């Protein structure tokens, strides 16, 4: 990399975006209005019942459940980048680890909420704790989602601690409540060697802990489907299939966030072309693994074409879901995979655009996993209106899903406005700045 940066420059560069509020309010306003519309949708749904959605007795899971898998999937990237790659000692993730962790926190929290939107009786949510049954995958899911959110928040908060003294010293003109937050979250940090030892060890423990929890959260999510005897869901590879797909979705989301933050926060010196190039290569690897699982998931039943499987596979390959199926497979996986093989496509702007395609593809891929299976019940849908087998989400479902997406982005935005988007102390370490120099830092 280029010549060494001074501590002063690092602190100034990373705290400046927190002070600069240009466009910030407008963006928040935009997110809040999207959420407001979603809230209107939810109120409609609460007053009229789930009948206000396009769901039916046959297609009884739709956009909310697809959205739920998408949210859990996107949240999983925190584990891969800040935990797995971090533990392996890979250095280039330092400036983007916190971005990944932010996405994990924001999306995991809304994953928990979106499930509530799908419930016919959200006011009975507590029944899950009062009458919870161990044998239900939903109980497992609730448990691991909550654990993942907790560990993700801790993994976000702990590395913030050594940054707090810098914030306290530089953000002198910040409002009182903000300074109070900085004080509380510094937990008496003075930067002693003992404290460094403790914090590094704690982060390491959490980083190890989150790996099985993250694997569990998405495996269990896949089991919501795989544990039922339905064609299209009844698959033994659903766990790893979901997990690898999740990394692709989350990786692309991180790529988009990297672009947005490096541009709006003026951090091109920190998140460089090198980082986009590395993320692009990582995505190639992840997409190759995901492609491998896709081949297994569709070619194996597609080769045999057993009764029941045939209807499902033909529906996806050439039937009325074919357009969506091939769009997400080609635009959301195969094409990005090929494009990312070229160095020019791993430059920031093309990488960001390709990543948008991956994320949109990832969202609709979850829809393709959830809905078409339900369109083919084992017994024909006799004596019910023909519409019972035809589903496309209506405005209520779209508005509520948009609220969830805007809500997750809102969490990311606000946290990125309260605290530096990169760990100052870790960036400083990379530049060869010692702990003593950091402790003596004055504006």
């Amino acid at each position, binding site marked *: 990399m280029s010549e060494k940066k001074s501590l002063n420059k690092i602190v100034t560069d990373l705290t400046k975006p927190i002070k600069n509020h240009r466009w910030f309010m407008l963006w928040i306003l935009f997110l809040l209005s999207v959420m407001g519309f979603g809230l209107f949708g939810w109120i409609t749904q609460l007053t009229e019942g789930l009948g206000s959605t396009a769901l039916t*007795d046959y297609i*009884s899971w739709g956009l909310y459940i697809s959205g739920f898998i998408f949210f859990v999937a996107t949240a999983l990237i925190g584990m891969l980048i800040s935990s797995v790659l971090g533990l392996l000692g890979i250095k280039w993730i330092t400036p983007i680890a916190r971005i990944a962790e932010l996405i994990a926190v924001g999306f995991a929290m809304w994953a928990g909420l979106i499930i509530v939107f799908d*419930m016919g009786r959200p006011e009975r949510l507590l029944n899950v704790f009062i009458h919870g049954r161990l044998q*239900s995958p*939903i109980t497992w899911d609730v448990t691991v989602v909550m654990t993942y959110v907790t560990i993700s928040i801790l993994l976000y908060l702990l590395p913030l601690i050594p940054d707090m003294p810098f914030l306290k010293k530089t953000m002198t003109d910040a409002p009182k409540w903000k300074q109070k937050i900085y004080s509380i979250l510094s937990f008496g940090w003075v930067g002693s060697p003992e404290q460094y030892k403790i914090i590094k060890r704690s982060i390491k423990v959490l980083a190890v802990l989150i790996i099985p929890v993250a694997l569990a959260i998405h495996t269990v999510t896949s089991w*919501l489907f795989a544990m*039922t005897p339905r064609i299209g869901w009844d698959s033994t590879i659903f766990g790893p299939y979901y997990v690898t797909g999740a990394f692709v979705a989350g990786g692309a989301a991180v790529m988009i966030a990297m672009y947005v933050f490096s541009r709006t926060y003026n951090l091109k010196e920190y998140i460089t072309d090198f980082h986009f190039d590395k993320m692009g290569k990582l995505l190639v690897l992840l997409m190759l693994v995901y492609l491998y699982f896709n081949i297994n998931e569709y070619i194996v039943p597609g080769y045999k074409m057993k009764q029941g499987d045939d209807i499902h596979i033909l529906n996806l390959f050439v039937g009325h879901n074919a357009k969506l199926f091939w769009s997400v497979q080609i635009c959301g996986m195969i094409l990005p995979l090929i494009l990312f093989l070229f160095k020019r496509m791993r430059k920031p702007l093309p990488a960001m655009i390709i990543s948008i395609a991956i994320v949109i593809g990832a969202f609709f891929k979850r829809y393709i996993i959830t809905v078409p299976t339900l369109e083919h019940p084992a017994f024909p849908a006799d004596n019910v209106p023909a519409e019972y087998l035809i589903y496309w989400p209506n405005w209520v479902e779209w508005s509520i899903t948009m609220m969830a997406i805007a809500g997750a982005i809102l969490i990311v935005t606000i946290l990125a406005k309260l605290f530096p988007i990169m760990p100052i102390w870790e960036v400083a370490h990379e530049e060869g700045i010692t702990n003593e120099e950091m402790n003596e830092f004055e504006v």
Partner: protein
Amino acid sequence: MKIKKQLEQKDNNTKNTRREFLKKGVLAGVGTILAGGIVTSFNATASGKTVNVLGPDGKVKTVAKEHLKDIGKKTEAQLQKAGREGIPNRRWVMVIDLGKCKNDQRCMEACQTHHQLWTSKDGKGDKVQHHINVHELKRNEKSGGFFMPKTCQHCDNPPCTKVCPVDATYKRDDGIVLIDNLRCIGCRFCVAACPYSARVFNWHNPKDEEKYADKKYNVELNVPQKRGTVTKCVFSADRLREGELPYCVSACGNGVFWFGDENEDAVTNGTTKETVRLSKLLKDNAAYTLMPELATRPRVYYLPEKDRIFPFESKKKEGDVNHHA
């Protein structure tokens, strides 16, 4: 119905004491009929609301409404408890004779009426709910079509109860799978898990919600229906408790349904009321269960449609797909 029956009983049996008679809950009102009440006093009270009751002497008397006391009726808590416990020493079982079904759909109508379900005749016909549905199927291209009434299969290894996060749907000792609409959170995991598509959801406000507003919830009837919860065939557990056959079984005019107790090894035909040995009926008629490959072990048996007593007339248009038989 009940009142008429008991009035006849009164004519036949004049020995009934007044107390016993009132206990049976015979109350005839002008325009209102209250079953299951007892008169605690004949004095009129301040509210002025009165009810006409038929006394033991055969004369109609006017009494204050407050003085009617409910007897012989279970509280909601008692109903919930009984609904969890089931009917002792019974193992309910249903046998459906496919050779006799001509798609009259009287079973479906009776079921929808008693379980407060939306039918195609209500509203714009966009809300239809079935606990029992009659399918039109074909085993393969060359074999003839047939009609198949399909209820909840009340599996002994139910995929639906396993996935319920709150124990709202459960399997009872008497073999029935029930759903508690007061506990259900509406996640619809059981709907997704049921391979027979036997479960339906209350997407909208239940039919005639106002009419059922003061009714106590009976888990064995799934009535009053609750919006945002799952509902399903309960083998008419409320009827079984009174020693009667399920609504669909009694409604059939073609002798399709046999219903009974596996422990007694006896089933009764809903139309002819003939009672036969269950084991012999199953053995002699090549009985089978639906989707045995899933090992759900249904409590509903089917007798193949060989020797149909009605000619089969398809109601389906060309190109409709039959997925399973």
